[in-house]
């Protein structure tokens, strides 16, 4: 079993108006095999947490720690984190002109595993994974995310999740912008990765809708850069009924 441990994490970004603190002391522990839903209103810091774990240069960690089985994640480069077993499914996947999906997937797999995948089984694995995610075969020869629709991009994020087999997957609003059919396809993919065993999942979402398809073990509610409440799946049901107003009313008046 592996453990991703976040302790008292303070994160800020530089803006034109000066340094702006976003995360204000987040602590969270995820073990492989567990699925944690991170919920909260816009601007509460959910995506910042995801990007910080992956190592996006825009975010500055002011204090606190992130460790993976005791190893200091914050000391690692972005690619080292991925090779250590972290995977971020991005909210807005980036287009990479000139690089085909096939080339990209093989290069990433080689980097993660430290050796090139065996050609015959790899090709078969890619084809099978694409078929399960209802991705047309011609996408293999298209450039990474170039001209993909929002739903196609999200499916390709999950394709990478299934092929790269990380220890921990952080899904940053993977459900946003998906219609119900696409949401089901994507959720099935995540569930396959979870059922394969050994995946710890951090499921970041604004809505409860995806939680009908991916069952969380724990739910954490983010408000203003902190975890305001946590509990089991029942907390998600309550959020579905009540929304986030309750937490926002508790926050200091900002008028």
């Amino acid at each position, binding site marked *: 079993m592996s453990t991703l441990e976040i302790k008292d994490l303070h994160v800020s970004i530089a803006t034109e108006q000066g340094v702006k603190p976003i995360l204000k002391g987040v602590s969270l522990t995820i073990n492989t095999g567990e699925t944690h839903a991170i919920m909260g209103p816009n601007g509460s810091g959910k995506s910042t947490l995801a990007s910080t774990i992956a190592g996006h240069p825009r975010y500055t960690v002011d204090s606190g720690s992130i460790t993976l089985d005791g190893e200091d994640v914050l000391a690692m480069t972005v*690619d080292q984190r991925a090779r250590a077993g972290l995977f971020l499914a991005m909210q807005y996947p*980036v287009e990479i002109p000139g690089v085909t999906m096939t080339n990209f997937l093989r290069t990433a797999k080689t980097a993660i595993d430290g050796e090139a995948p065996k050609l015959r089984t790899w090709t078969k694995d890619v084809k099978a994974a694409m078929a399960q995610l209802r991705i047309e075969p011609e996408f293999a020869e298209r450039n990474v995310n170039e001209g993909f629709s929002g739903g196609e991009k999200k499916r390709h994020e999950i394709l990478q999740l299934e092929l790269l087999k990380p220890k921990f997957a952080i899904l940053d609003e993977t459900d946003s912008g998906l219609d119900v059919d696409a949401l089901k396809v994507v959720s099935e993919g995540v569930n396959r990765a979870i059922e394969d065993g050994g995946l710890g999942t951090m499921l970041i979402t604004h809505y409860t809708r995806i939680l009908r398809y991916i069952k969380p073990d724990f739910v954490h509610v983010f408000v203003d850069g902190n975890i305001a409440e946590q509990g089991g799946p029942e907390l998600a049901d309550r959020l579905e009924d009540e929304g986030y107003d309750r937490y926002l009313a508790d926050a200091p008046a900002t008028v």
Partner: protein
Amino acid sequence: MTELTEEKVIDTPVSEEHDGKVWSQGFIKGMTEEGEKLSDLNPESGPLGGSAVKAHSHGDSHGGGVGVPDSSRAGRLTSYKLADFPLITGREEDWRFTPLKRLRGLDRVGVKGQELNGPAPVVAVTKPDAVTVETVGRGDARIGSAGIPEDRVAAAAWEHFAEATVVTLPAEYQGTADDVTTLTLTGAGDTPAASHIVVHAKKFATGVVVLDHRGTAVLSENVEVLVEDGANLTVVSIQDWNDDAVHASGQHISVGRDAKVKHVVINLGGNLLRTTPSARYTGPGGEVEMYGLYFADAGQHLEQRLFVDHSTKNCKSRVTYKGALQGDGAHAVWIGDVLIRKEAEGTDTYEMNRNLILTQGARADSVPNLEIETGMIEGAGHASATGRFDDEQLFYLQSRGIQEDVARRLVVRGFLNEVIQHIKVPALEERMRDAVERELAAGAL
């Protein structure tokens, strides 16, 4: 790439500039209103149309350009005589991007004793038996059969070259991509020099000719490519000079009836390279593919200006130029002029330029121009986009475990490979891939 796109309907003429910005333009469909007369300008009279058309105050050495408004690309002066061209000030449309001070006098031949009499590059030849390569004097009848200078620098070279190299593919010769004729042109030093090359594919000949420029030179060159009816010729011009070289190359392509030409420009090494290919059709059914690949490093100025002159019916042209830029002061210029004259019904043309800026301090100018004087065409369009390899792309690739240097290579290789794979000459493709690796390594990426 950070890319914006913008769709436009093209009027006559279009000229846009893009400074590290992004821009693309779509295909023009339709425009087939029966009988519509869009313009009486530019009646069919090629620049080689002869003195009858051009007999005018400039004397009888002229080709096109007389009596046509300056706003049209067809109005550009063409002449074999240096004296016909005014001095270059740098404000002219076709010189405004070129750093004249770095031309080492090529622009000022005949002014204040500036000469153009240095030794021409040394020519070494490898070729199949059937192809002939000759060195001929200025009086050879084949000189002038495919081209005419379109600027002062090219006219100076035309007046000053001592002898020309003529490559001939005999009629119905069947060359292959492995059976290539290569002229290795090694610069003979930094005294300004002129040179002249004629590549002649006779009727129904098929083959590949490579011009491989190396060494150090300050050179003004004219290359005439004469492609007779039904021939299928590939010409690859590689500029892989030493860092200090200056090279202006006017490449004039004459495309016969039902002939096919693939013209490839590869600009890698040199301080200032200005390559100006132009294609003209002498009969219907001709097809031209023009590819370009350039990699501008710190301080390099790589300029590519092309012109496709559709003056006859049912001809086709495709232009694809791609370049990568890295380092302080790296500058690439791409100008793509396409003119569809009134007579050129059934024309099918598309041109595209893409730039990938890898570091701060590099600049790409990309200007596609399309003039259309008839609505009776198959299609006409152009696209230009300049993108930056940005932090978000790098982050995305790294977040999949790919190291930074590998990520950059992956992107640049992929970007340029689109052009490389069209060369279809295995030995050259290999060399170009190596060259790209070398450029990347030199840029310490």
